[in-house]
Structure formats: structure tokens, C-alpha cells
């Protein structure tokens, strides 16, 4: 599964979805690729996981995956998170695909909350589990008005909310789901990845698909598409950074770190992307 041609060509049943559902979701994916950043409505199926637990990402993956695929599933950057393990087992059993925690071996990476630190390449597909696809939900509650705003690219309210954030807090406080303009047209929510991962989406060589099961929306960033965080010209976009923080396992200070409180007070830091951290330790050990 690597090209749009594959998407159109191969159709098959699997244990979770029938061929009709696969076709319907692929149609939504193709529309999403054709109109980058546009939220395509789709008939979200009941999945063997509860809505809110990755059912959107799972449906996208199940519509793509075949026995030849190699699948990596992460949750908060961790291949061994309970949700990641369960989703991976389900995908493998239903499709006959093989598993990996190595990004470079994978054909499909399904993720919640992170983009792998190790860069992905053309031909791979990143599938993101999205809790709330609507970037403007926080500034407008009326759905019809939201549709109008997207249709007319009227994003003044989002700019105002960024203005207000800076005026009231002196900085941009939004952490996950930072609003970005895709291909100069639609604003998307980069949910729920941290600001740290946002620059990785800009002109990425791979296809990124966002699946929201509960909200019944799929959107896409095709390869080599511009993804620009909404930010004022004179206020640079900044990613999370804590001075002096290093991973307690691999010593990195150039990866996305998460903190753990220590019993004796204070906190320690560790890479959020566990497989990347492990690879780096091996690399260091070998030197």
C-alpha cells in the first residue's frame, strides 16, 4: 500500500471491515487527498474499540492495510502503550500484516499524539487518530457557520483567538492541535500532536491521513504539501523547549521529551518516542 493507484485498485474484505466499508473509506481518503486539509465526512463504522480510542485511525488503517504491509502503532510515541498494543494486535490479526517498531521498516504508521522522530519517506503512510478534527471549534460553535468559514477561508476568528492568547498570556499557550494552513487554503487542527511535531508535517515526503471516528471526518496532507502554523509575522512559531532537559536514557536534548516527577522532588526527562530512544542508545553503545 503506497500509492494512490493502490488505493483505487485493491479491494478486499478483512475481519473488521467488509469490502463495501473499505471502498467507502477509500473514497473519502481519495477525496481528502484531492482537497488537502478539507475535512471529508464519512460513514464512521462501529469498531471493536470504543469511539475516542482511535476508532478513526483504525478505520483508515483497516481500509489501507493488506497482508504485505508492515505496521507500526504508537501511542504517545510508545510502541508498548496498552492502546497501541491492542490496536496493533487487532490490525495484524484482521489483515495478516506484520508488525515492527522500526519506522524505516514500516509501510503504515498509526499514531496517537506523536509523529515518529525518525523521518519517514515517500511511500510510507502516517495515520493519525484524531479526537476533534475541527480546528475552529474553540472559536465558533455553530456548525453551519464553521462550514461557511472553511468554505470562504474566513479564518479571522482564529487569528483573533491567537491575538487574544498573546495579549492575555504574553505568549501562544496552545500546545497540541496547533492550527495550520494546508497548501495555503484550509486550516486544520494538527491534533493531537505537540507543537514540536508540527514542523515535520511541512513538505513531508509521505502521506499523512487524519481519521476522526467520533466526529466522522477524514482529512489528509499529501506528500510535499505546505503546512504553515498560523502565526503573526512578527511572532515566530516556537516549539516546546525546556532549557537543560535531557533524556535520562539516551541523553538526547534534540527530541521531544516528557517529564516524570521524581519521588525526592523535581523531575526527570525521557524521550517520548521510545523506539527512537532505544535505537539511539544502541548507536551510542556501538560507538
Amino acid at each position, binding site marked *: 500500500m503506497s500509492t494512490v493507484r493502490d488505493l483505487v485498485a485493491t479491494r478486499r474484505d478483512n475481519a473488521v471491515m467488509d469490502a463495501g466499508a473499505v471502498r467507502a473509506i477509500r473514497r473519502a481518503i481519495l477525496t481528502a487527498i484531492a482537497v488537502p486539509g478539507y475535512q471529508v465526512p464519512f460513514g464512521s463504522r462501529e469498531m471493536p474499540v470504543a469511539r475516542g480510542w482511535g476508532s478513526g485511525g483504525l478505520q483508515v488503517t483497516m481500509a489501507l492495510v493488506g497482508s504485505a504491509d508492515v505496521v507500526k502503532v504508537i501511542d504517545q510515541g510508545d510502541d508498548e502503550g496498552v492502546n497501541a498494543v491492542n490496536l496493533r494486535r487487532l490490525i495484524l490479526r484482521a489483515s495478516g500484516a506484520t508488525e515492527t517498531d522500526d519506522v524505516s521498516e514500516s509501510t503504515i504508521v498509526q499514531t496517537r499524539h506523536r509523529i515518529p522522530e525518525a523521518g519517514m519517506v515517500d511511500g510510507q503512510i502516517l495515520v493519525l487518530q484524531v479526537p476533534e478534527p475541527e480546528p475552529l471549534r474553540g472559536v465558533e460553535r455553530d456548525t453551519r457557520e464553521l462550514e461557511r468559514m472553511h468554505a*470562504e477561508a474566513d479564518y*479571522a476568528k482564529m*487569528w*483573533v483567538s491567537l491575538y487574544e492568547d*498573546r495579549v*492575555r498570556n504574553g505568549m501562544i499557550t496552545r500546545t497540541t492541535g496547533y492550527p495550520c494552513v494546508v497548501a495555503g487554503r484550509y486550516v486544520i487542527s494538527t491534533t493531537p500532536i505537540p507543537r514540536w511535531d508540527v514542523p515535520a508535517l511541512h513538505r513531508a515526503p509521505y502521506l499523512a491521513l487524519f481519521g476522526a471516528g467520533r466526529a466522522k471526518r477524514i482529512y489528509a496532507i499529501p506528500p510535499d504539501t505546505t503546512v504553515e502554523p498560523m502565526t503573526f*509575522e512578527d511572532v515566530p512559531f516556537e516549539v516546546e523547549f525546556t532549557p537543560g532537559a535531557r533524556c535520562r536514557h539516551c541523553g538526547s536534548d534534540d527530541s521531544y521529551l516528557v517529564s516524570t516527577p521524581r519521588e525526592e522532588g523535581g523531575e526527570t526527562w525521557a524521550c517520548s518516542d521510545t523506539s527512537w530512544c532505544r535505537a539511539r542508545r544502541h548507536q551510542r553503545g556501538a560507538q
Partner: protein
Amino acid sequence: MTNITPVAPTLAVVGLGHAYGGIDDTTIAETGPAAGTSKHARTGTVVAAWDVSFDVAGGEALGVIGESGSGKSTVMKSIAGDIMPTTGRVTLQRGDGTTAVITEMSPAEIRALRVNDLSIVHQNPADGLDLRITAGGNIADRLTAAGWRNFAAIRERAAELLTRTEVPLDRMDDPVGSFSGGMRQRVQLAKALANTPSVVLLDEPTTGLDASIAAGVLDLIRGLLDEFGLAAVVVSHDFSVIEMLTQRCVVMQHGRVVEHGLTDQLLEDPAHPYSQRLVGAARA
């Protein structure tokens, strides 16, 4: 009707009419001031406004007077593009010299027009402002809609406008909901002027304010109309507002213009019986 035609009308309303329900010659003939109603007895059609024409030049303010149900709101909504009138044409000269035919525009085009060229100051500040966000943020709404993307420049422009409309700058970063009624109205004026529109519609701009506050806001509006060279349409049932702000005015009753002339003259010497009643009531 006699038109005192300005050199280049910034806003031109020609033969505007709007009816709710089917219309033919009899519905028009059997409604209006002569019939004493805007609702057609036999068909139930409401002729909210009919055959309304006027011009407004830059730097000029025109008043629209009439009681509730006289059709002044219908005229206002047609100019604002909120309703598509049954007949007639509304044109606006943009600041860049191009002409916008409001009665032929799509909703998206009208929204763009309302960002750049046409502003409305509502009677209730809550209709024109988001009370949850700051005074500066409300102005930023207009500026970002017009493409401003520089934070410092937006702050500077907002401060300039608020200074001009006499809102203390130390309130710029407070939510508008914490402001008094008079100050909200000043913020609304600042927002309306943000992108230097060519036309501004003032809908009962001081109704609901204390008399002393209203006088201050009226002084401010008059100064702004002169300074910015705006073409203004002022809708009010209050003659003191019309007298203070406008040079010319039209009187509406049952959906028709019954009298049209210079404000001073019309208030001194109203010709139409309805105008006489209105003026008489106001002067009493």
C-alpha cells in the same frame, strides 16, 4: 421625488422594494400611506418597503426616520446585504474607485464588502462586538479579516482607533463585556472604522444610552463622519439624533418614503401630515 443629487454618490439606492409574499400592481397600489398599512388586505402580502431611492455622498449623512414597521430596517438590511430585496439596486463606491452592486453580490462578496468598505454600528453593542474578547481583539477581528498579520502593527492600529474614539488605552486589553454601555459603543465605532470604510450605517447608535453619555457619543460620531469623509446612513426614531448628525433625511411610513429634504427644513417645516405628527410629537 426630488433628489438633491451630490456630485458622486458614494451610496446610491434606486427603486428599492421588498415584499413578503406575492406582488402585483394591486398589492402595491393597495398598500402604503394612502391605504394606511403595509399589509395587503386581500393577499396578506407585506410590502415592507417600496420605491425607496436616495443618494449619499462622501462626507454626508442621511437620516431615515419612521416609526416601528415603517420599513427603515428593511432599507438598512438591504443596504447591508442582509436581505436580497425584491426589486431595486444598491451601489457603493469603494475606496479604490470601483463600484460594488450590493444587490447583485453573493453572500461571500457581501461579507468581504462588510470587512473593507461598509460598516454597521448596531444599537446593541453585543450585535457588533464579541463581549468576551478584549477591545483590541474586537478591532483585530476586522484587521485580520482584511489580511493584517503583523501583531505589533495590529496593536498599533487598534490603539490609534481607540484613542480616536476616546476609549482609555489602559482598557484596550480588557474584555468588552466589562465596559459601560457608552464605552462599548465607542469600541464599536473604533471597530467600524478599522479598515476605513467608505459607507457606515448607524442603527439607533445612541438609543439605550443615558442622555449625557449619548450626547458625548453623538459628538464623537459627528467628528468622525467629518474627519473620515464617510457616507453615513443614520436610522433613528429620535429627532435629536437625526438633527445633530444628518444634513438630509427621508421620512418613511408604511413602507414608503413620504417626505425627503434637508433635515433643518424638514424639522422646521414638515410638509407631509405624518412628518408633522412625528415632529410635533418630538417637539412636544
